[in-house]
């Protein structure tokens, strides 16, 4: 247990000092991307991991929030107003998603969220007066919270890190809470939960709102990072990508989605600079994960590590017996 805390502390220190030891603005920006995609993955993990509700439409929510930010700024509103409006829009969009898709679970839920995501993608593409169509929307500036300009890579990284740590803390609290336990209960035995007096639909609905909030937060960081939003952000491949982050890292675990986000972003941005067929590589990695650790990288690694330790202990226990048997 204490080993785990030491590891987390070292990870935290590395994250805080990252701009000092990471060479080059480019890699600091990659780190920022990992962090806000990790928030996105954490948000989807609330549903896919803890709620057993796999959504294939989260990129739509992500995109709606990003467009809302860009559109408000274009209308001349301040960053604060734009961010608040975008958060409300993102969560409200999730509420509509939830109202429609929570009518079913399993494949039905996947298909409805997929359809809703495609509708939003279509709107982004075709509602040109609002979204600029294929040309997208550009953001001229980044915000300056408390007078700190987020214009350069380091300050933006720190702002993202703070939001990321707050999101992770919120997840940690939620997962240990009664509502978190109830959500996992509805994932495993919804019928029993209902018989025990829980309102299964409402629990799932609240989980959706929490997921939507995290998604919206990550989308705002994303849109300020790229200072550009176009329909591609809402595409099905984007929804699939974040779902792969969750599943490859370990659905229903706290750290899994973060590891998954790091894996996908690193392959997409860094490795793609060296290997032309990075898509193939990413596919191969996913296949390897599915074969070797179907539960995801984080729980899979923990399992293998425990297995190795147990074998080591067993070997250690066998050794003295052999020595005694000699004379």
């Amino acid at each position, binding site marked *: 247990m204490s080993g785990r805390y030491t590891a987390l502390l070292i990870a935290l220190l590395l994250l805080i000092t990252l701009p000092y030891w990471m060479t080059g603005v480019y890699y600091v920006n990659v780190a920022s991307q990992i962090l806000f995609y990790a928030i996105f993955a954490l948000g989807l993990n609330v549903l896919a991991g803890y709620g057993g509700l796999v959504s294939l439409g989260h990129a739509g929510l992500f995109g709606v929030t990003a467009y809302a930010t860009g559109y408000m700024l274009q209308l001349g509103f301040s960053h604060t107003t734009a961010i608040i409006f975008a958060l409300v829009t993102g969560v409200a969009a999730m509420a509509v998603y939830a109202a429609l898709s929570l009518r079913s679970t399993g494949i039905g839920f996947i298909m409805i969220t997929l359809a809703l995501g495609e509708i939003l993608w279509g709107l982004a593409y075709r509602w040109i007066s609002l979204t600029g169509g294929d040309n997208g929307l550009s953001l001229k500036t980044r915000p300056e919270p408390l007078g700190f300009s987020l214009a350069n890579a380091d300050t933006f990284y720190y702002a993202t890190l703070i939001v990321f740590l707050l999101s992770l803390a919120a997840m940690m609290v939620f997962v240990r809470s*009664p509502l978190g336990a109830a959500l996992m209960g509805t994932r495993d035995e919804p019928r029993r939960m209902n018989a025990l007096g829980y309102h299964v639909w409402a629990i799932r609905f609240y989980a959706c709102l929490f997921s939507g909030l995290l998604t919206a937060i990550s989308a705002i960081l994303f849109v300020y990072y790229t200072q550009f939003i176009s329909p591609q952000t809402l595409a099905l491949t984007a929804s699939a990508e974040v779902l792969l982050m969750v599943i490859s890292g370990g659905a229903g675990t706290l750290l899994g989605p973060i590891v998954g986000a790091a894996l996908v972003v690193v392959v997409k941005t860094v490795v793609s600079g060296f290997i032309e067929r990075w898509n193939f590589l990413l596919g191969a990695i996913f296949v390897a994960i599915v074969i070797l650790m179907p539960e995801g990288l984080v729980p899979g690694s923990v399992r293998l590590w425990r297995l190795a330790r147990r074998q080591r202990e067993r070997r250690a226990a066998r050794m003295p017996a052999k020595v005694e048997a000699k004379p």
Partner: protein
Amino acid sequence: MSALTVTNLCKSFGGLHVTTDVNLNVEAGERRLIIGPNGAGKTTLFNLITGELTPDSGTVELFGQDITKVPSRRRAHLGMARTYQIITLFTRDTIIHNVTLALLGLSPARWNPLIDLKRQGHFVEQAQAALDRIGLGHIANRPLRQTSYGERRRVEIAMALTQNPKVLLLDEPFAGLSIDERRDVHQLLLAIPRDVTIVMIEHNMDVALEFAERITLLHFGEVIVEGNRAEVVADPRTREVYLGH
């Protein structure tokens, strides 16, 4: 006073009449046994009583209150608890977490997203006490998947009991148990205080007949015979449809 009253209850799936005009009156504190051959509609009757299925017609009353339209999750809050024929528990979690979920289900704290569930002392104590009572206190923190079938059956009954139900519905609590396990569950049921009304579906006649005061025999969704133990066992119709020859 009657704890549970079922009046003219009907349910059909397509053309199949699973429950036909069933009337049932269970007094407070009574131990009622429902028997009947496979497909007689016993579990369907339970699902109608707990609200997991909606009846086509008829009413269900709990202590005089008409609950026919009350959603099943609310019925738990009104004092109805059940166990399932196929054990339905949270296999990924520990035994004590299963019981804690049962306690939490009736508490307003179940909506709280901010507190740490494991640090809520009163839940932990109550859950531990409930497990101590059924003799599983020493393995409270064992993951459920590492427990035996008999232990699971007792955990399921303990979960229902921690909710302090007024009416407890047990769907084949002895099914699939070994003789020793059957004795454990039997003792557990005998220890339930009289302010809990129990309705039980069971095939295992040697234990069930001893436990029940009144028996209802269902056949093709209809109540065929009802009465005390001796009456029902002696009734020729019981022998015909159920006990055989």
